[in-house]
């Protein structure tokens, strides 16, 4: 059985699906009996969503206009 420290160490890789099958099985076994690490896992999932949500940056219209103008210049060469 892996320790809580080992489980926490592997959580993000588990969520990224980059763990080796044996490590994955050991972690899932640990999560099955450890409420604290389940809380860590849920929070890690929240943090991933939190980072993904922070991507919502739009291309400002003035920047878009200037970049399109650059493409126009390249077209004209």
């Amino acid at each position: 059985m892996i320790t809580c420290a080992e489980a926490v160490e592997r959580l993000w890789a588990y969520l990224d699906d980059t763990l080796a099958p044996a490590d994955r099985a050991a972690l899932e076994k640990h999560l099955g009996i450890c409420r604290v690490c389940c809380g860590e896992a849920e929070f890690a999932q929240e943090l991933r969503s939190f980072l993904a949500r922070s991507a919502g940056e739009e291309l400002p219209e003035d920047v878009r206009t200037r970049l399109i103008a650059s493409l126009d210049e390249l077209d004209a060469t």
Partner: protein
Amino acid sequence: MERRSSSFVIALAEKRNTTGAPNVFQKADAGPSPRETATKKRFRLLAEAQLPRLYTIARRLVGDEAEDAVQDALLKAYRAFDQLEHASAGPAWLASIVVNVCRDRGRARARAPAEVSLDAITDFSLYRKIADEEPFPYSDSLHLDFLEQFEAEDVRAVLERLPDRYRIPLVLVYVDGFATKEVARLLDTPLGTVLAQLHRGRKLFERQLWLYAAENGLLVEGRR
């Protein structure tokens, strides 16, 4: 006022006055061939469709220099477009050029944040830290309330605190949604190295989230 990165303008002028061997976009005699016109059109369609994504990536990686980075990347991509063999690879190919332009700019700026001892973060758990410190005593969703204190600009500021070698893989995977294998290809780095950088980057990010919250008064109930 028209704004262009100086490198873009200089490169454009060089391109117009070039006397070297023509690439697919250049021809010694007057007028483009139908093939050249079609290639230009394909580049234009690809580049224009990808502008929002390229800008978002660049904004995460080099902040206020994003527009210049995208302009530089467009010029590089334009010059090398005839090397792109499969149109379906176009978006990833353009993204890789932006990422590498941004990395070069990061190195040139040499504005690496202060190094953090990795020993100090190995055992850090933001989950436990929040539970131990209980910043919002009346909250019944302590951890979610902690995250809700952060606006988009706060997250950007926290990411800016990380050294490039951890920030870039972290942003590409968790903000821009690239697979770890794609990131390894984009950065021309072994997958194992990217996974290790992601691991340390996540730890640093968690630690810096807490420090930023403490330094910027985000650990006050009812603030937002």
